[in-house]
């Protein structure tokens, strides 16, 4: 009977090793970046092993420097506009599309699904070449509008797919009742379907927002020539090419991470409420 117990003991130790290493490795770099952003650059260079800054050493100087002097504040504003517009348009399109895909039988429904799946699998870098050419042909490179449309096209298929699951959970009897009461299709989507699927819609919107906020490749291709229009991801990546103090880069990295992490936890909460409110029907 001794074998299982040794086995259990070894596995128990292994289990906690895995958990400890996983936490260190996943949360560690972010914490490292945050701690560096609080220290003066000189002390980072001379004492790279002093991870935790002493109290009198802590400075928030890197944040305003990154935002104002290196222009990341303006870049963030660009990113915010792009990400909000992308999320808004993608949700608008995908709510309509997902409703049709779930509730309506129409010609070409299956073809549309296959095409969307295909788009999802196409490499972004491959699409980037012709998009760069076509958009510069019509004069949309160097504009945030062009970027928004590219992002919408990249995210709508996923958003539509996510929303389909949430919309399927809306009982169709409610919709039928509204229709009998003389509700038109669009009003039905806005007044009945959307409120019932709101947690899922919000979570999808956050997801799209995050993709647009984090995106780098298309921003690099379309906007690199025009510093005024840089998104914040592009801004930070470009700064690493110059001899900008690491502390400033870390401050910028933490600053772009905060909205994403906040959004992520918000989405999780939304999804949990959404799931439990669905489960209550039993």
């Amino acid at each position, binding site marked *: 009977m001794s074998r*299982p117990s040794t*086995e*259990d003991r070894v596995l128990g130790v292994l*289990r906690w090793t895995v958990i400890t290493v996983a*936490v260190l490795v*996943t949360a560690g*770099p*972010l914490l*490292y970046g945050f701690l560096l952003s609080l220290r003066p650059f000189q002390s980072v*260079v001379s004492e*790279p*092993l002093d*991870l935790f800054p002493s109290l009198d050493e802590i400075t928030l100087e890197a944040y305003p420097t990154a935002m104002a002097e290196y222009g990341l504040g303006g870049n963030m504003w660009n990113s915010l*506009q792009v990400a909000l*517009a992308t999320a808004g*348009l993608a949700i*608008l*399109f995908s709510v309509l599309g997902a409703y*049709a895909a779930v509730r*309506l039988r*129409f*010609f*070409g429904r299956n073809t*549309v699904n296959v*095409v*969307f799946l295909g788009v999802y*699998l*196409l490499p972004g*870098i*491959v*699409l980037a*070449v*012709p*998009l*760069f*050419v*076509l958009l510069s042909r019509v004069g949309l490179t160097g504009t945030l*509008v062009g970027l*928004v*449309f590219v992002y*919408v*096209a*990249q995210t*709508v*298929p996923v958003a539509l797919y996510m929303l389909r699951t949430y919309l399927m959970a809306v009982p169709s009897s409610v919709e039928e009742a509204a229709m009998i009461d003389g509700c038109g299709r669009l009003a039905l989507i806005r007044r009945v379907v959307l409120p019932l699927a709101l947690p899922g819609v919000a979570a999808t919107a956050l997801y799209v927002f*995050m993709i647009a906020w*984090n995106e*780098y490749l298309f921003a690099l*291709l379309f906007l690199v020539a025009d510093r005024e229009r840089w998104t914040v991801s592009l801004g*930070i*990546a470009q700064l*690493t090419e110059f001899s900008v103090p690491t502390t400033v*880069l870390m401050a*910028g*990295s933490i600053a*772009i*991470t905060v909205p*994403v*992490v906040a959004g*992520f936890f918000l989405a999780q909460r939304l999804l949990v409420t959404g799931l439990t409110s669905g489960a209550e029907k039993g």
Partner: protein
Amino acid sequence: MSEGAPTATAAPPDPAPPAPQRESRGRRALTISQREDLHGRLLVSPTVIVVLLFAVLPFLAVVLFAFLDVRLVDIPRLYIDNLEFTGENVAAVWGSPRFWSAATTTVIYAASSSAGAVLVGLAVGLALRRPFRGRGVIRALVLIPYVLPVVAAATIWKTLLNPGYGLVNAVGTEWLGWAEPIAFLTTTSRDLGPFAVPVALLCVIAFEVWKTFPLAFLFITARLQVVPEDIEEAAQIDGAGKTRIFRHLLLPELAGVMALLAVLRFLWSFQNFNDIYLLTGGAGGTEVLAVRVYSELVVRANIGTASATGLLMTGMLLFVVALYAWMIKREKA
């Protein structure tokens, strides 16, 4: 922004237009299924238009450009009626050793990072399977790499690995007795005993595993939650150890989701541009196909060869997808 125009196209017409009423009283102009058909098409049309314009059309353009002699400077004079077709781009790319070395690097990169992500995801998923105090917090922390913006993650990693003041080199030289700091992201290979270790490639693979294993972890955790418990309990009562339970009960249950994850991760890593470009810029033996497409386009300003490289890359991806589909089909038959 330009939200006005697409919204207008998104609005389906009023369900009861006045015209048919005048024509025939009492009879509906459209049957319910006809109306459903119309509404369905109208509602998906904005999505379809955007996807056609910004994804399908560009893809067709890649195929076209791959067979055109066209450079970036030619764009303003590019018209449909003065296109010159040539097979040279594809031939040049196919015959270039750099393309094939990039292809090899890409396959190594995609295969090892997808396998790594699935295995690490499995290990963490199993370790966090049984509840304990603080598990929720740890689960959330483990997801950090996945939600971190790629630029922020790459910048932090570059700092960590920096030869001058990075933590890894500081620990290595101060505590582990390294003779000198290692320039991790630019070193192509380094002799370690009898082996030549591809340092930079290993770093970008580690970064990809780090960034993507949380997704595998999430999927595997979700699958673990629906594994029926009674069989496991029965096996335990019969004296099966944990490793045996894992091998004979859990692994068969998880095999499907792990295979799917491995394939998806392979497809995504295969086309990854951001992570490698941000970390190494393609230096140190990390030039993958995506980086080649970019440098053909931006550095050499050659749309033709960039498109040809992209087209061949897509072909390889389709091959993998077809292979997977074929294997699934055979398994079901």
